[in-house]
């Protein structure tokens, strides 16, 4: 039997400078401390079967990232949420737990889009102008470096315009965006930010990027990953 729990988590503050593998280790230790009955892999080095939807970039905050963990036995989502939060270090928290239905796809495979808010030092007017400019273009070519098989880096041009689903200036220099993510097209908030910087000039503050939600696609609709794959949720 295999039960998978999906955790929606957030991180903010100094802990955002951790890399993806550090976050993985952090959660493995938290699970160990919490007493959640994690399922372990077979073999010489048994490890927890844990995977993340979308590796967090260094310095990025999040309110809605996802981690899947296989459990050795079924447990109520509410209890797991509480157990894990009781050992969370400040700056990291779990906001939701869903127990996935049989055969649900893993979080990483589901990722279709994500929401972000970037906190900049620009005025609302400048941001509106920049956003309008970008949204008015039919195509936005950016250069991406790509590693080919021989580990040589090559630069390719990519049109990211179709990947920008929403882009809006908000109050106090905040910028909201919904971007296509996943194995096909993947637009990063940093890509948009550098386009904005090109238009608005050097920023007076270090911009802070915060992921707000990650979506999967089910029946042609974008759903937060905690709502994908059926099952029971904490708070249900």
């Amino acid at each position, binding site marked *: 039997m295999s039960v998978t729990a999906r955790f929606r988590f957030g991180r903010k503050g100094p802990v955002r400078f951790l890399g993806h593998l550090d976050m993985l280790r952090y959660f493995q*230790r938290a699970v160990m401390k919490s007493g959640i009955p994690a399922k372990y892999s077979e073999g010489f080095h048994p490890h927890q079967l844990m995977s993340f939807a979308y590796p967090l970039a260094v310095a990025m905050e999040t309110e809605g990232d996802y981690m899947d963990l296989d459990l050795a036995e079924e447990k109520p989502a509410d209890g797991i949420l509480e157990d894990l939060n009781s050992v969370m*270090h400040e700056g990291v928290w779990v906001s939701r737990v869903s127990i996935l239905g049989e055969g649900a796809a893993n979080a990483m495979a589901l990722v279709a889009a994500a929401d972000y808010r970037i906190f900049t030092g620009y005025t609302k007017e400048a941001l509106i102008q920049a956003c309008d400019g970008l949204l008015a273009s039919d195509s936005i070519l950016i250069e991406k470096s790509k590693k080919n098989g021989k580990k040589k880096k090559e630069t390719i041009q990519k049109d990211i315009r179709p990947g920008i689903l929403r882009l809006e200036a908000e109050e106090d220099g905040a910028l909201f965006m919904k971007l296509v993510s996943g194995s096909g097209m993947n637009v990063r908030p940093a890509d948009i930010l550098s386009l904005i910087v090109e238009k608005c000039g050097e920023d007076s503050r270090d911009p802070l990027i915060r992921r707000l939600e990650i979506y999967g696609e089910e029946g042609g609709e974008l759903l937060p990953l905690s709502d994908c794959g059926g099952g029971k949720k904490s708070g249900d």
Partner: protein
Amino acid sequence: MRFEDRKLALPDRILMKVEKPARYTGGEPNSVCKEADPVRIRFCMCFPDVYEIGMSHLGLQILYGMMNAWEDVWCERVFSPWQDLDRILREEKIPLFALESQDPLSGFDFIGITLQYEMCYVNILQILDLAGIPLHAAERGENDPIVIGGGPCTYNPEPLADFFDLFYIGEGETRYRELFDLYEEGLPRAEFLHRAAAIEGMYVPSLYKTEYHEDGRLLSMTPVYDDVPVSVKKTLVKELDDCFYPTAPVVPLIQATQDRAVLEVMRGCIRGCRFCQAGQIYKPTRWRSVEKLLEYARELMQNTGYDELSLSSLSTSDYPYLNELLQELIRICSEKKINISLPSLRIDAFSLDVMNKVQDVKKNSLTFAPEAGSQRMRDVINKGITREEILNGAEMAFRGGWNRVKLYFMLGLPGERPEDVAAIAELCNDIAALYYETVPKEQRQGRVNITASSSFFVPKPFTAFQWAPMDRMESFLKKAAYCKESVMKQLNQKSISYHYHDSGTTLIEGVLARGDRRLSTVIETVYRNGGLFDAWTESFSLERWLDAFESCGLDPDFYVFREREKDEFFPWDLIDCGVSKEYLYREWLNAKAGKVTKNCADKCAACGCTSYMCGICISPKGGAA
């Protein structure tokens, strides 16, 4: 203060530019933030190397946990900024800060620096300099922090005498409370230091004046006031079960070099190897009880979430209750899928059996540390292991399914002859041959794999070899080449790979280990000329050191290559670590005669440590358990 609300000392644009920014952001699980109010002493613990190395050190966790349990003290941490951040801090004139509060070091009451190896001395000056604290203790004013050193290198702290206000000689658990109580009296700096010198283990270098013979040897070190002790006695914990243990250590968020929970089972070593400083300065051997250790193990697992637990000591096989401890530990750990690691085990039937139980990994390599190739040489260094024991251990290991053996040796030991060097190769060959004799052809999984490596021996204070000349670099290299050549001549040479640590740092390490306080200027010169991270081969420059010696008018050879006279007054003679100079000299003569001395458990060698009235000196099993 909430961790997520802490304001970082470095802006994002800098953190995004440097390698591993989480080295500088703090806020790890079990790290401690306090409100300013009841705190009267701000202490910053410093390990003068990068974060990942410093955070692997148990001593730092002990003091951190102990001090933070006191309401009036807030202990924080700082490590050497790596070269990338070092450059930025200088360019942008950002003062060095502590990880927890992110406050500049200059505002602290104490900077406590651990001295773990000689090659980090230059990094100490980096820390002080980046913090804006005057490098010389003599130049510090009432508002500057008290700079205090601790750790193994304080057993000869003289090369650093100019830079430290105070050295703490001995184990940190015992005297900090007393020192802090004195500090809280609010005395002027000079008076505080003067009064601190009366506390056991406190060495205030500025309160001693040195005189030298015309030929450069030290003549005397005498207190400048009558009430300052002529000798500083090491302070230690008499009963380990009664002292603080960090069962909620700070858990690094980035991977540390030693990324696991640590259970210190005992302190000190009964063996008395003549090259080993740790074996002398941590005497007498003291044990923790099984009961306490199991309690700590459970708490450690609960508080850290680590998936590995390591038993720590100088020689875990000598822990008298190892069997009992491991039986229970294995039970607890396998339940929780926690791996047990057992460094410092002698290879014998018992340890192989244990390793079979705890290592669910493939039969990894086994490690032997014969230190010398010939029995004669092992007797000289009093390494209490015979050829038969090594071969028996190897045979058992081969029968148990191991086929990779690692062997550690030293070159340049006092009295070493060419045949002793060749014996390294012969021993490797014998072990390889034994594999083919022991394991039938059909059971072999390929060739046996013997990896031998040798390092260059550096004589250290408080060892029998403190009188000995160090081997010269040319000789080291010649011996290493000869050893390699000898390996090539062996019948089983294809199963043996031999490496030596081509360490240009050996000479400098040797000078600093037995140096005097005149070397402070050399260290400072090296630092001023760009020296940093000398312990890292890629940043070490022998030339920079040799230039500094020359410009300071000091001869490095003087410190390392002469055999010292019996009665020479050593820079570290002021420190009393428990073992007497008479005992060490007896051991030096025994070494020259190739005579073995029994270990503490078999027969007391009258080293002098009985004066501490604890551990193995008063009860054969340390009084524990």
